[in-house]
Every structure is written in C-alpha cells, then in structure tokens.
C-alpha cells in the first residue's frame, strides 16, 4: 500500500511537472517596434541580448509591431506583461493608446516627440511611463564643439518648428560653454537661404538639430554646400550626415540605444518602477568625415573625441 501511495505521488508529481513545463513562459517584457527596418532590428537585438545576459529566457521577451500590440490589447492578451518597451514614435503612440497597465519605457524617441505625445495623451512621466531620449543633450553637443574646435566662438543654429523650443536652453548651455549663438528661424522653404546666410555669417561652427522642416534630403544639399563654402564646419546628429558632408556627427547607435534600454528594463523590474524622469543616452559615437575636415584644414579623430567627452561627463 505504501509502495502504491509512493507510486501515485510520483505520478502526480511528474504530471504536475509536465503540466507546468507545458505552460508557455509568461511574457514579462514586450518590445513594440514602430517598423522593421535594420535600425529597429538592431535596437531590439541589442535589447534582447542585454536581457538574456541578465537571465531572461527568450520566451520572456516578445517583439510586437504596433498593429499586433493593438490587436493583442483588444483581446486582453497583455495582462501578464510586466513592462513594455516602445521603439520609436509610432510604437510609443500605440502603447499610450492601448491602455496597458504595466510600465512603459519609450526609447528611440526624440525628446520633442515624447513631450508632444505626453501632451496629446494627457499623460505625465512617472515610474509607469518614462523614456530614454534619442537626441543628444545640448550640453554634450556644445562640449563636443569646444573639444573639436577650441577656437570656435560663435555657433550658428537653424531652428524650425520642431527645434525652436530648444532656443532658451541652447542659449543657456552656450553661455556656459563660453560660446555665442547665432540663430535664425526657418518658417518656410523659401526662408531657408536667407536664414542660412544669417547663421553662417560670422559663425565658426554650424550646429544641426534634428528638425525635418529644416534638415531633410531636399534641403541638405544647399545647407552643406553653403556651410562648406563659408568654411564653417557642420556638427550634426546622425551618421548619414557625416556621409553627406558634415564634418562631425554625434549620435547614439541603435546598439547603444538597445543596450541602455535593456539595462533600464532590468533595473525597473528589480525596483518595480521606471526612472521618474526621462533619461539621456549614456553612450554615443562621434563620427568624422575625414575628407571634409581635411579640406577645411581640420584634424579630428572621432574615437579620441568620444573618449574626451566621456571623461568630461565622468562616464565609465
């Protein structure tokens, strides 16, 4: 009898184990991507790697598109999720609309876009909703200018509807960096050339801030030709601009964005909440266009500038 009971218990235990093993791993992290182009894939891959290194099984992290998110939210399939990560504006927008209850971390998102989404959705940043900005802080961009071009005294900046909000911070940060700022606002396509002339006049460096009304594939030709002709090196915000002809660019690569997001997610799951305030990218790349800088008589090294910037910010 005792032997029978032992057998029964063993069978029940095994059955429970089989049942338990047959259950899918609960989805703990859902990553929502705005698109599937290589940049997004690289961010999610880097994020997954960071999570896996911390012990997350592959089944615990799921990648969804914005549309899939909306479908699953309607079907109530997201209730067990512990944290959502949005990659890009569209994904963040979907997460805010989907009415999810778990914390939402928005990444790969410019500060201006995140603030607009908060405003339009009536939400505020909190331990449940935060972001890692894609744009580099102005403080860092101006520090790069000082490091790369120590003789520079005046920075020219073109502002549009999406960047004019940075003007007061720009002035404050520039003052702190002992730089003068010469700005002009581009209110229409027609206004680009006069504004360009205004900001390049007397400037030692031209700082580009992401704003599709000012910087786009149609305007970049005239902007770069004018700044080169004026012998004013351009400091921009994406690797494509270095290829196009900017002297220097400062940006966070998709791998860096994904890695930082992974670390923030791990900390949030441990602490139970996200950072109360959005955070800045903690790693970055400095690219140099060697042909353009050479033609301008400059000698710059991107890796050295990155290290110098990191030392300045006391980053490891």
């Amino acid at each position, binding site marked *: 009898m005792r032997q029978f009971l032992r057998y029964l218990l063993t069978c029940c235990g095994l059955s429970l184990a089989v049942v338990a093993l047959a259950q899918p791993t609960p989805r703990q992290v859902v990553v929502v991507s*705005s698109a599937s*182009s290589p*940049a997004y894939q690289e961010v999610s891959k880097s994020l997954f790697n960071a999570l896996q290194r911390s012990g997350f099984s592959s089944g615990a992290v799921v990648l969804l598109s914005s549309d899939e998110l*909306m479908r699953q939210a309607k079907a109530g399939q997201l209730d067990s999720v512990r944290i959502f990560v949005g*990659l*890009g*504006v*569209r994904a963040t*927008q*979907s997460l*805010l*609309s989907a*009415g999810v209850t778990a914390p939402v971390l928005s990444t*790969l*998102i*410019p500060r*201006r*876009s995140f603030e*607009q*989404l908060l*405003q*339009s*959705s009536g939400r505020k940043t909190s331990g449940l909703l935060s972001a890692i900005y*894609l*744009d580099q802080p102005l403080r860092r961009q101006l520090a790069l200018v000082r490091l790369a071009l120590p003789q520079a005294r005046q920075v020219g900046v073109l502002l549009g*509807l*999406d*960047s004019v909000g940075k003007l007061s911070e720009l002035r404050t940060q520039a003052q702190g960096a002992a730089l003068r700022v010469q700005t002009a606002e581009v209110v229409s396509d*027609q206004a680009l*050339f*006069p504004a360009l*002339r205004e900001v390049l006049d007397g400037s030692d460096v031209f700082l580009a801030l*992401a*704003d*599709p009304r000012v910087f786009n*594939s*149609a305007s*970049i*030709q*005239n902007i*770069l*030709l*004018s700044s*080169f*002709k004026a012998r004013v090196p351009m400091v921009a*915000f*994406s690797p*494509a*601009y270095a*290829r*196009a*002809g900017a002297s220097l660019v400062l940006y966070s690569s*998709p791998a860096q964005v994904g890695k930082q997001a992974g670390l923030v997610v791990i900390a949030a799951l441990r602490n139970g909440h996200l950072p109360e305030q959005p955070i800045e990218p903690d790693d970055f790349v400095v690219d140099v*266009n*060697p*042909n*353009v800088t*050479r*033609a301008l*008589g400059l000698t710059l090294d991107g890796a050295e500038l990155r290290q110098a910037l990191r030392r300045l910010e006391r980053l490891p």
Partner: protein
Amino acid sequence: MKSPLNATRRDSTGHRAGAVAFGLVLLCPAVTAQVTPAVSERDYFADMPVVLSVSRLPQRLDETPGAMTIIDREFIRQSGARDVVDVLRLVPGFQTSTSFESDAPQANYHGSFSVYSARIQVLIDGRSVYSTYLFGSVAPGLMSVALDDIERIEVFRGSNSAAYGARAMLGVVNIVTRRPAESLGVRAGLNRGENGIADTQLSLGWQALGATMRLSVDQRADDGLTGSNGHNRVQRANFRADVAVLPDTQLEFRGGWMGIDAGRGFATNVNAPLRDTVYGSSFVQFDWKKSIGSNHDYAVGFAHMQESFVDVAPFALAPVVLDYSGVASNDSLKFESVHRLDSDLRYVWGAEWRRESVTSQPLYNTGSAIVTDFTRLFTNVEWRLAKDVLLNVGGMAERSSASGSTFAPRMMLNWQAAAGHTLRAGVAKAFRPPSVFEKQGDIRYSVANQLLQITTLARGQVESESVLTRELGYLADVPWLNSQLDVRIFDEAIAGFIQNKKYALPAGTSVFASNPRDYVNGDSFSIRGFEAQWQSQPWQGARLGLNVERSRVVHAIPLFDPDLLTAVPTSAHTVSLQQQLPAGWQMSVSHRYLDTVALPSTSSYRGSLSRTDLRLAKLLRWRGYKAEIAMVVQSADGAVLDYRDTFVYPRRAFFTLRLQD
C-alpha cells in the same frame, strides 16, 4: 483641429499609408486623437544623399599642383574694381590693360606678347570663354560676367594644359559664379563719376519649379582712355538655374548675352580710322552632375557660344572698305569622372570634343566657315606617397584637326616639410596651337576686281608653340600676423613662339607691291624669375597683401623681335590694405607698380605703371535692407600710360551705390 505638425514630408508615404490611416480612424479613435509628432527617430536614421562628394571638395592650397591666387567676393567688392580684368591687375605676374582698342581689355600672365590675350585659359563655371575670332583671345570672355555675380576667382599661375588643355599655356583664370541659392532676392547697384563712368546693375534671384534661378542684367560704360576714341559700353544679361533633379543629381543651366560697343581708331591714321565697333556674344551651357557615393562623381557638360563682330570703316586713300567683321561659334561636349580609391589616391579622367568655327570673308578671303575640331583626353592622379608627400601626375592628349596632336604632361611633388610649411617642385609641358588667323589669315583689298594689295597671307606652316615650365614653390601658413606666404620660382622655356614675319609676293601679284604678314614659329626664349605673395589678416577686420615679382627674358640665340625682351616686367609689386572701421565704415587702398614694359606689335607703347586706388565705403542697414555707399578714386597718384604711348588712364573718381534686400 489640424496641427501644423501633421504637415510633414512623411505625409507623402503614399496611398497605402493613407488607407492604413483611414482604417485607424475607424478602428482606433483614441490613436487618431493624438498628435503625430513631426520629428521622429527616422530623422536620426534616414539616409542622406552625399553632398560634399569627391569633386566638390577642392584641393587644399598646400596640395595643389602649382601656385594659386584665390580672390574672394569680399576682396573684389572692396577693391573698387569694375570688371574682372581690373581685379586680375592685382594678381602676381599679371599685366592688364583697360583699352578696348583691340577687342576688349587684356589680361596676360608673364608677358603681354601681343594686343590679344591668347596664352591664358579663362573658364567661367567650367566653360572656356576663348574667342575664336581673329587672333584668338580671352579678353571678350573676361568681360562677359558681372563682378557682382562672381563668388570667387581662382588664378592658377603657371602652365596647366594637363588639366585645361591647350591655351592654358601660361596660366588659368577660373571664375566661379555664385549659386543662385545664395543670391536670392533683388540686388541693384550703380557707379557714377568722372570719365563718363555709368555702370548700372540689377540682379534678381528666385525659387520656382524646384529650382533656384538668377537673372542679372548690367552695363559697364565709360569714356575710355584719354587720347583714344573711347566711349566703351559693355552690356550683359546672364541667367543661371540650378535644378536638384534628385538629391544626388544636379542640373545646371546657364545662358547669357553680351554686347560691347567700343570706339576705336585715330583721326590721323588712314589704316585705322575713327570708327565704332560692335562685338556680340551669346551662349548656353548645360551641366549634369551626379554623385555615386562619396568617392565617385561624374559630370557631363555641353556649351555653345556664338560670336559676331562688326568693324567696318572707309579707307581714306582709295574706294576700299577696311573690314574686320566676322562671325564665330564653338561647341563643347565633355565628360569628367572623379574617383577616390582611398584617402591616399584620387584621380580624375575625362574627354572633351570641341568644334570651333569662324567665318569672315575679309579676314580669310572665303565666305565658308573654317572649322577646327579638337578632341581631348585627360587624366590627373593625386597620390599621397607618404603622410607628408603628395604627387600630382597628369596629362592631356589633344588632337586638333588643324595642327595635329600634342601631349601635355605635368608632374608636381608637394612635400609638407613641417606643419604649415610646404615645398613644391614640378615640371610641366604645355602647347598653344596657332589660331585660325595665324594659320589661314588672308586679308586682301580689291577695287573693281582688281587686287590692290595683300596685307596678310598666312602660309599655314606654323605649328603649336610650346612651353616647358620648371618651378619650385614654397607655401607657408604661419601664425605670425595670421599670414600666408606663397613663393614661386619659375623657368618657363618657350619654344617656337608664334610671331609674324613679312615676306614679299612676286611682282605683279597686286597693283601695289604686297609684303604680307605670315605667322611662323620664331623665337625661343625663357622667362625666369620669382613671385612672392604674402596675405595676412593681422588684426580684426583687416586684410593686408603684398606681392613682389622679379622676372627677365633670357635667350640663347638672338631674338627676331627684340620687344620680347621687355614684354615681361623685370620688377613689379602690389601692396593692398582693406580695413573695416567702426560704424560700418570700410577703407581700402591698393598700389600696383610695374616697371617698363613694351607691348609687341603696337611698336609704340613702352612705359611703366604706378597706380594707386582708394576706396571709402559706408554700410547701411534699414528694415532688413542692406545698402552700401562708396567713393572710389582710381589712379589717385596721377595719370598713367596704357596700351599706347598716346593713351592715358586718367585719375578718376566715382561713387558707388548698392542695394540689397
């Protein structure tokens, strides 16, 4: 409520995106209630066309295969000059004139060997403005662009046939006009003053149909040199449109017209009586430029130019008309490809086909067009042999249907001995083919089918003249007074110099004995010397320049034309200062000195030049408008001889008013 943020370029993603958006409107009202931000992560990861590609990055001055003088727009404005030739006057090694007696004011580098400028190449935005008419000359072309349209002038001092073909025998003047994108709006200006100066200029730049365009119309007029039959008037209209066909593809169109009305001749010279002449030219130019990545560009260009010249006067001693009229045209089709293999190796190669045609019954004794075809193949390799050593090797093979084939090679080594100190050493060979007139000139005068006299009858034996240039250079970029020094030491060995030689035709050929001119390869000689150009920005708002030049003509065998010995000044210098003053004031002063030179083929001019120009200007701003009022005094230190011993360039003052929106 429609937010302006929705109106972005990403709205153009097509019908599919529109359908998706419509579906979302129906299914998810909560989503559509939100504002879609304009700036997004795509601005950080979107691809961009390569703009500053390999051909758009010019060589640094310390890497150019020779000596360069670059004159920028600001220098031109402050110089007080009224035309390009007057600006070139301040470039080391240049001799210029303001006379319209031959065709238009001349500019020559290392010697005014005749009254026509035929030994330098002039390009305006890559288009050769060589005039096929008569002896061949770049002087009318130098007049064909208004100073206000110019972005900069790059003067390559020394032979550069390897890059620019025959006619770049002694130097190249490369004029780059402003991009229409940088000259939008309205600009107007006028000069009024002594010597009948009446210049007027109006320029309009605008954007339309995805292109930027500029139309400029202007006039340059004065009473010319005292003692000449002055009253010269140049009128121009130039149009340029830049179309960005694709972000990496640019189409540029240019078109223009110029008319020069010039009084010429002398009351006491029956062979050159007082008369009014009219020169007209027009052109169209298309350039298609494409970047294939940052390391490969190519360009295709076509240009057509049409010229006409009317110069007719009666001969006082016989019922004969002195006629030098004619028409000419040229067409050019060229291809150029620029590659960068890696950071140490860049090369360019290309080909050009050019057809020059000239028709003039009085000059060639035929009503048929005389056509010359040129085909050119060229390449230049820029190879960094070591970190501090750059080698430029290139050459141009050229075939002319009239004067055969030539190959013009060039090699220049630039060694950066220390930071800011570069030494150059190089050798180049260049050619100038004879002009149509030098090859086929045939001027004869007849009355009632009776041949009175033949004054020119080229026998066609003349071949290309050549120059072998050896030079050493030193370029220093030093912090002392924020200055740059360029020194060029040269030996330009000219062989088979084309000159005229009279010969006798058999008695009875004409009523009067004919000893016509022929053109032959004559003297061989060398021009040796050095030029030092020092430019400085010693303090805020100041630009200081000093040029010192020494040269001489040396020859192993006696010269047929002794005037060649003094065609190049043995000594010359230029001093210039441009200074910005408080309250928008600006002052500039320039002084140019050339010691005694002769002008071969005039047989009358022999003189030195000492000319000082002064300019005082005040910049004004009013409600976004900019204005400038200036007073210019040219030749303030007194009158100087120019072109002939009876032509005087007087001291003269004029006012300038410029307006810009």
